[in-house]
């Protein structure tokens, strides 16, 4: 009796498993396939934009979320067989890397004209969607705003030992290294990294570094601006122990970087993908995005509802996303400094 029930248990369980396998979602057929988006950008703005796009055009979008660089690796690995139609990256270097491998198609010229040309690829293979800024986040009770230095390079000194949080494996930090290298030279960039290695504290992400500052674990963090706003939304801005410091003066400590998108050459839904990118930089699209994340819209005339420092007054490092390239040189420096 007992054996029979056991055997029945196994048989039923096995049959159930097979039924579940056969019931799993299958890839849709190519002729009716929805637009396939590989997304490395933060989800809230992307999901908001997709909802608005589908509502306005009737085109369905499926999303694969991930880290921008990992998705770029995946696209490179997939090559011409990639199921992706379009790639929305949190950072421009991932777009540059896929473009350099000849995987991105040119965008519609009309789309490219919607945002200032310096925020897109020179060859028109990708377009900037939003801008954000490298900033210094500091804990108000641990450090006096007047004591903050005039350059991000100053943090890599013994005076700041144990007080500076940074995330060497974030794409944004890599771009900051590139900016230091372009503006101050390779040797200065390497010395800066070695200083941070010796005196700074490594965090896994900008968001973790900002939280550590807010929690009083460490005085200062080098971060993108919107992580502070994300935390402020979580905690309530009035209750924040930390604040943002914009260095300005063309210093690499204030660096404007962009998120952006490109259409794959191998896209099966190339036309719909082009429409999506056009929608992304349209007035409606830009409004939808910047309501969901504290980044700057790139389309002139659209404003962010977040209390951001005015874009025009940032006085950032004078380098463009195109100049930052795919950040390979930054990785070499990170490795030379023993940080990667």
């Amino acid at each position, binding site marked *: 009796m007992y054996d029979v029930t056991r055997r029945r248990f196994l048989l039923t369980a096995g049959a159930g*498993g097979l039924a*579940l396998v056969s019931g*799993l979602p299958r890839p849709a057929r190519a002729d009716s396939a929805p637009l396939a988006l590989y997304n490395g950008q933060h989800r809230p703005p992307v999901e908001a934009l997709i909802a608005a796009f589908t509502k306005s055009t009737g085109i369905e979008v499926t999303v694969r*979320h*991930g880290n921008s660089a990992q998705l770029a*690796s995946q696209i490179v690995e997939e090559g011409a067989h990639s199921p992706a139609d379009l790639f929305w990256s949190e950072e421009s270097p991932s777009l540059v890397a896929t473009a350099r491998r000849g995987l991105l198609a040119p965008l519609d010229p009309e789309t490219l004209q919607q945002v200032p040309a310096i925020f897109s690829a020179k060859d028109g293979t990708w377009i900037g969607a939003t801008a954000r800024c490298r900033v210094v986040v500091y804990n108000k009770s641990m450090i006096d705003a007047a004591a903050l230095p005039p350059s991000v390079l100053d943090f890599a000194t013994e005076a700041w030992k144990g007080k500076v949080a940074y995330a060497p*494996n974030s794409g944004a930090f890599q771009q900051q290294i590139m900016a230091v290298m372009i503006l101050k030279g390779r040797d200065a960039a390497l010395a800066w990294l070695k200083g941070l290695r010796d005196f700074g504290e490594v965090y896994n992400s900008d968001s973790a570094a900002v939280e550590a500052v807010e*929690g009083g674990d460490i005085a200062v963090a080098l971060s993108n601006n919107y992580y502070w706003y994300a935390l402020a939304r979580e905690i309530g801005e009035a209750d924040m122990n930390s604040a943002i410091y914009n260095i300005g003066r063309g210093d690499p400590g204030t660096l404007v970087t962009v998120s952006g998108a490109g259409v794959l050459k191998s896209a099966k839904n190339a036309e719909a993908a082009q429409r999506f990118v056009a929608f992304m930089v349209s007035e409606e699209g830009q409004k939808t995005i910047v309501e969901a994340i504290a980044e700057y819209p790139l389309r002139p005339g659209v404003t962010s509802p977040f209390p951001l420092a005015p874009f025009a007054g940032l006085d950032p490092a004078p380098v463009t996303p195109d100049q930052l390239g795919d950040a390979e040189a930054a990785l070499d420096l990170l490795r030379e400094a023993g940080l990667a």
Partner: protein
Amino acid sequence: MSDALGDIGSGLAGGAPRSARRIALGRPPLLLVMAALVPTALILLPIVYVVLRSWSAGWYAIGAELVRPRTALLFWNTTVLTFAVTGLSAVIGFTGAWLTERCALPGRAIWRIALSLPLAMPAFVASFAWKSLGSEFQGLGGAILILTLESFPLIYLPLAAALRSMDPAMEEVSRSLGRNGRRTFLAVVLPRALPALGGGALLVAAHMLSEFGALAMLRVQTLTTAIFQQYELQFDNATAAVLSAVLMLLCLPVVLGEIALRRGQRVSKVGRNTARQRSPVPLGRLAPVALLGLVALTVLSLGVPFGRLVYWLIVGLSAGRGIDTILPALGGSLSLAIAGTFVTTLVALPLVLLSLKSRGLFVRIADRLPYVVHGLPGLVVALALVYFAIRLFPAIYQTAWVLFAAYAILFLPLAQSAIRASAELVPREIEEVARTLGRGPIAAFVSVTLPALAPGLGAALALVALELMRELTATLILAPTGVSTLATEVWSHTNDGAYAAAAPFAALLVLISGLPVYFFTRRTLTAIRR
């Protein structure tokens, strides 16, 4: 009885192999060999990928990568973490198993559950909870504490099962031969508990080698976090492959150690469920100490992380954001985990059966290779599958099947260990008896061996389901586009700093992980005794 005496005899002789048993091993059936080729081929994929990618770096780059001071640091951190967590987990697991199985501990049934439940708490959830209590829990020390608290059940459970299923007759015989309690323990109990201890320790060690999410949160840099970093920073990465190769080599001594432990061990019983009840050892004045220790352990391993989840639910302003995706995510978790579990267990079964029927070199390598790969991060296995699926089987790329292949590669050893625990209790002779009575090989297997394997299969299903529920990186890369799981939602919300939004997903993940843990615990701890 003669079998028991024989076992004690071999124990006295230092575990000498019993050659009489070996003769019973015939040539393995061809069908079984064919079936075992499937997991072997799967396991070879990431190995080939790592070798190919390392090779493309060239000898000079490989050498340069190996002698960097940073590689030494990563190697050191990885080794310290692995040894410390495995050692501490073994101590806690053994103490816990001894208390609940051999001692007159008040509330044994409840403590069994309390000691198993931390399995349901994903390490990255626990780490986030602890980290938010204070920065002192970050770093290597904090990681050792937190990961031990969530890992020890992997040793506790098999050990508790082993201690329970041991026939008291052997210990009685040993005592009747004049050995005292300590010597009986060393000569009879310990050798029989070692395979369970070794198997559990191996799993903990492999988890530590491949752990990523928790360590990233706790700011500990190991080979695995460095591999992730490399992939985040660069494309076509060869140095990450070199580090992966180092990680696989680190798994080798662990696996060889476990093989040494298992050599000459065979713990079959004549007939099923013959172990008698034994009377528990009174704890006496130690009872309050034991209870206090168990309470502290439960508070640390379950109370703190759960408390933080509830706290974030109440305090965070992002609470409820994205809550409409909770049902699709639950559906994704369940369908991927359940189906993946059956695939993984099914693939593991022939491997275990073959290893019991035959001891050839191929069989031994095929049986142990999954443990070497178990230490690889999910990211590497996933990228290997992208590489091969796109080139060899483009039609199934981004279907659930590739993900199931990754699940099988990553978690075969869990299924193997659980099935083997049951399979070793089945005397080989039984199937032969069935065959001499006129049954064919398959009929003999289905009617005699398979029912006896049921507890092990149940345990395998539960353990694998548990791991698949919380698997993150392979799922992110390989899941069919548009399919999300609870784990990927937790990851993505915490990535955006929205902890309160992540909390309901994390809580649900812990709760549904509790189901396989409960099932596994019941299977492991009661089926044997009935």
